[in-house]
């Protein structure tokens, strides 16, 4: 279990208890956090679950795979700390994780 804070583009925060094994995307979608569309349900097929990982958490969330990186290349407003949240698996090590959401997923 990890407590994850999602911060919308407007600044609104959502704090969610995410079970281990789910992805950061799934936890958000199941709690209807606006700003993560995730149309494909986590198949890494749509690039609509883009988030910015709080810099201090980057080491723990790991690096994007080459597949994910290729998808991110086409997302809007990509930064060095951009990730697809469907590719970040929740574990105890991510307790306290903070991610920010982009203005738009499309």
């Amino acid at each position, binding site marked *: 279990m990890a407590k994850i804070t999602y911060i919308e583009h407007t600044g609104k925060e959502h704090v969610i208890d995410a079970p281990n094994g*789910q992805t950061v995307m*799934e936890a958000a*979608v*199941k709690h*209807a956090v*606006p700003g993560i569309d995730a*149309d*494909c*349900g986590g*198949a*890494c*097929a*749509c*690039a609509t679950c883009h988030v910015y990982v709080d810099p201090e958490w980057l080491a723990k969330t790991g690096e994007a795979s080459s*597949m994910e990186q*290729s*998808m991110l*290349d*086409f997302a809007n407003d990509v930064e060095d700390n951009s990730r697809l949240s469907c590719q970040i698996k929740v574990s105890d090590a991510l307790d306290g994780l903070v991610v920010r959401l982009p203005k738009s997923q*499309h």
Partner: protein
Amino acid sequence: MSTGEIKRVIIIGAGQAGGETAQRLRQAGFDGDITLIGEEPAPPYQRPPLSKAYLKGEYDMDRLLLRPASVYAEENITLLTSLRAVWIDRANRRVRVEGGRELPYDVLVLATGAKPRKLPLVGADLDGVHLFRTAADADALRPRMVSGAKLVVVGAGYIGLEAAAVARQLGLDVTVIETAVRPLARVTSPEVAGFFLDEHTRQGVRFVLGGQPALIKGRDRVTGVALSDGADVPADIVIAGIGVTPEVALAQQCGLAVENGIVTNRQCLTSDPAIYAIGDCAARPIVHFDERVARLESVHNAVEGAKIVAAAITGGKPHVEEAPWFWSDQYDLKLQIAGLFQGYDHIVLRGVMADRAFAAFYYKGPKLIAVDAVNRPAEYLGAKMLIQTGRTVAPSELEDESRPMKEIVAAAR
């Protein structure tokens, strides 16, 4: 009816299209009654993993749910599961459900989905012959998918091939019977179909192409499939993957226009201005298909319908349609598709198939209309953006692998 007068929305069909509609109506600020009626016992869930991670046992039902079951009550969405709608009274705007109860609506959304086709053969009802559409179908199959069992898949479409891939990974003996001379005949080009045929063959799947199943053999349970040329394929399990028919019975009963699916306009409105139809059951003019009417069976189309209808009901900004997209996972291959390839006149390859990472771009004249990308997400997303915005690039640019896809897309006009 003006949007402010809409107080009661009934959605028939609690699949992804219906579930997304309920959710998006609330997100868009609709505060009237929402009733979501589904025949299956579960709240809305994702179907694509059924033939992939769920069949393999990697996902459980909770993980498939679009939203946790508790969300519906929290958002004041009346979710009626294991319940069938049996009659629509358009004049009085009422839906009758099994048991006789009648529910009034101001706006009705038909998201009734599709039914898998049964094999039109003697023996199709034998134990061991499976259709593949619902979680219950997958649950019935899963315990039988054991190493060494003989599986026959009838129909080499995406679902059939995904099931074949999972079965091989679980150690089953797999034969695919397809009446066409190649797999995926309806959904992709001969080139890409050939790639998947080779891949499955290498993984140990046997194919009977141009094969005509004549009879499902067995007394109490299936023992094999007899072909019209006299050959017999032994089987412990048969999966029918021969496509679906849209679920249009209610629409026909109440006199809505139905052709291949419930006919709607671009806004998903049927021939009755109080009834929308979305998802697998409905056909509408597709913006990125030259406005040709098509009935798309996909997550993309389910979500698009939900977005279009939620915007229409709440009087919000009309949804800007996305180019169609699809995906299929087989073995370690991720196939990502954007656009609709029907009507293409030439194909351009980027990369080589032998590397198991390539993209096939489909052109109609100078215009890029679709892509099949295998383990090439940049080509998929790049082409999707081009199709979305009506831009195109010269084939020679795509064939030049030294230029990154991103750069090609940025320079496109």
